[in-house]
């Protein structure tokens, strides 16, 4: 239903585009604003507007191809939603739901495509989250590829002893993963101890006040985008509170 390609739109893309150079906190705000707006409305025209609004950001991030790979891989999911919502509600509600989902995907995609995990950690710190929280996230990003490589080596080692991971019924297949999981868990626990040793040896966790090597700060273009997003949010909230601001057909669904 959803292929692995779905993740392509959420994997960091190396680059120097306009969106890449925006402060990560503003990008977080972007995802938040679009999420709120997409939840405030549920009819088709506002969704179309929102969806079109995500476009300039995708283009500004020079990540149209990646974004498209994600969208392409969700086609079946969307068809399913389209059919089931049309049957239960209406065709226009179905389209609205699909578009809302697209808006979620696009706005988060912009965030993950253009925010390097390091910058994410720096953003969390700048937003006054506790350092341990930010460090945990960084450490996870750092070690996921290493653990994946370790898992691959373990699989090779066990395959070399005759283990076949793709044979047998469901129960057998699950049982066959035990020779993979046990070494992986044990090695990870051992690794955790060794990493802790190294952290301890460099004074980790001993200072209340921490100054950071890398600092992020907002510049003009960051504030500009922030204000634009704030305005967008304000307009959306106003329309929701005072529907008389817009012509009635805007907030109605199609007569289907």
């Amino acid at each position, binding site marked *: 239903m959803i292929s692995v390609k779905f993740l392509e739109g959420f994997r960091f893309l190396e680059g120097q585009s306009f969106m890449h150079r925006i402060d990560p906190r503003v990008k977080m705000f972007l995802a938040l604003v679009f999420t709120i707006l997409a939840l405030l409305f549920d009819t088709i025209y506002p969704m179309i507007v929102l969806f079109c609004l995500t476009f300039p950001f995708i283009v500004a991030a020079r990540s149209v191809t990646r974004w498209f790979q994600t969208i392409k891989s969700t086609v079946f999911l969307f068809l399913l939603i389209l059919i089931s919502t049309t049957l239960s509600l209406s065709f226009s509600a179905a389209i609205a739901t699909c578009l809302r989902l697209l808006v979620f995907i696009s706005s988060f995609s912009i965030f993950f495509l253009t925010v390097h995990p390091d910058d994410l950690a720096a953003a969390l710190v700048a937003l006054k989250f506790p350092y341990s929280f930010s460090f945990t996230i960084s450490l996870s990003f750092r070690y996921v590829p290493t653990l994946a490589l*370790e898992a691959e*080596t*373990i699989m*090779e*080692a*066990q*395959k*070399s*002893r*005759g*283990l*076949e991971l793709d044979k047998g019924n469901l129960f057998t297949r699950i049982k066959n993963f*035990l*020779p993979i999981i*046990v*070494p992986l868990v*044990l*090695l990870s626990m*051992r690794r955790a101890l060794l990493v802790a040793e190294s952290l301890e040896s460099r004074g980790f966790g001993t200072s209340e006040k921490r100054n950071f090597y890398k600092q992020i700060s907002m510049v003009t273009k960051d504030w500009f985008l922030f204000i634009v997003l704030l305005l967008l949010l304000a307009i959306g909230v106003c329309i929701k509170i005072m529907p008389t601001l817009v012509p009635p057909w805007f907030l109605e669904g199609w007569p289907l």
Partner: protein
Amino acid sequence: MIELDEVSFRYSNDAAWVLKNISLRFDQGEYVAILGQNGAGKSTLVRLLNGLLHPTQGNVYINGNNTCNSSVAELAREVGLVFQNPDHQLFAQTVREELQFSVKTLAWSSEKQTNAIKETLSQLDLNPFSDRSPFNLSGGEKRRISIGTIWVREPSIIILDEPTTGQDAVQKRNLASLLSRLQTYGKTILLVTHDIEFAIKHCPRVVILKDGQIYGDGPTMKVFSNQRIMSESCLFPPQIIRLIWKLQEKYPDLPMPNKPNEFTQSIENFLKN
């Protein structure tokens, strides 16, 4: 018997070639060290031999069968690959169970399985640990177990990937005598290593790999005493050989010994005449 016929390999179409036009042949019963720096292609070569990887170009034949026509599980019946880190394999509650897992996938009768396990435990001196957890044993013992988990399957070929890393002198000596003993059973043993001193002491033949190509292949002393091969492959020749070369600068008639255990005698003869 192992045969690599003009084998080249790369991981994807836009990646660099890891192995370039390798042709090698190992006869049954040989004991060969495959040497090279990190990144020379040794690990890739070894994975081509048990089907974990398939050649991009060329063919690999194990006992006459092309590896592309068999699954890894099928090839693992004949080619046993002992990985560098035993912790990547060990998962069972006891050493005996570890061996049982290894033979379970072979479709042997339960009598044959029991016998094979019994023999392996005794041949590898694992009887004292047979009902103990493999995780609490020392590095050297774990390595013996990991060799045991491959040995019990009775492959005709055993490949060991960097078995001497991190081992002290006593452990290395034990490993060397174990491998020599296993070789007397007629198995082909391939040792992938960058421990040149271990290779010169124990392996009759060496193959030297650099940048995915073969720079040397032949009897150990002959390859290691070839200055051109050693400098081109960027390996430090064994100390004794470098000593003889140094002495040969003043006394060119000093002969290079044919066997590593003849060194002491050679030097003593040198001092006498």
